């Protein structure tokens, strides 16, 4: 594991708590594991409910999109109503959505990285498994080799 990053954030907390629970076998460990599971679930829920806002390149319309890419709001300015015809307005609405959806996808990747400590192109999940989880990773390696 030298030189390899360990999972961070809620996901890292969860893995370390799970490993500690398995090691200790103590009763209180089960409660800690439950709490860690709730923490992880909360972090994932927060990630999916976060909303980003972006404007079309001309700045006429603002779209709010959640991190799953679903449109939540479309705020059309008075300038857009004055300057654009119906087709133009349709186009800037869609453009604002596209910009917001792209930002949402980038934000989702950032939140995932914050939660796990793993970014695209970084160490793989297997490499990032903490030392205390090593035996689990070894079991997975054996399982893969057996396929």
């Amino acid at each position, binding site marked *: 594991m030298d030189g390899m990053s360990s999972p961070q954030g809620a996901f890292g907390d969860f893995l370390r708590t799970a490993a500690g629970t398995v090691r200790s076998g103590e009763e209180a460990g089960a409660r800690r594991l439950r709490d860690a599971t709730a923490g992880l679930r909360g972090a994932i829920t927060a990630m999916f409910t976060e909303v980003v806002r972006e404007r079309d390149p001309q700045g006429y*319309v603002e779209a709010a999109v959640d991190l*799953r*890419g*679903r*449109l*939540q*709001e*479309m*705020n*059309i*300015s*008075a300038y*857009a*109503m004055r300057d654009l*015809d*119906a087709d133009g*307005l*349709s186009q800037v*609405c*869609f453009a604002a*959505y596209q910009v917001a*959806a792209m930002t949402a996808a980038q934000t989702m990747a950032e939140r995932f990285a914050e939660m796990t400590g793993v970014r695209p192109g970084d160490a793989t999940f297997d490499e990032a498994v903490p030392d205390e989880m090593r035996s689990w990773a070894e079991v997975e390696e054996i399982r893969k080799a057996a396929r």
Partner: protein
Amino acid sequence: MSLESNDIARILQDLPRFQEALQAAVAGVNDEGFTGTAADGGVSAVVSGLGGLREIRIGVQAKRTIDNQTLGLAVVEAVRKAEAAAREAMGQRFANVSLLGVSAADFLPPEVADVDPDAAARHIAAIRKPT
């Protein structure tokens, strides 16, 4: 109810048919388009089978007669309706794909298909052996 060896044999026997049916249900799902409208049809939106927004269309009359804030709300409403149509279609695609009497539609996430969110848990509980 518990899983018996006969059930497992049936699952293994049905698996190829289940996989084929599942692939057929999924094929081309993202190529389809579903439309939703708002403001008496003056605003429309089209989403893909997976719910991705493809088009927003504001009609001349709607743009002329509706104020900017209400128009923004109408765009969101049209998108919501298009997404709902896509979810319903997704549920129908998977409704007839089943394994051991369990519909694949019950295992789709609610944001992808209009399904009972507790159905999957009930099926799992029903086939799990009592401890």
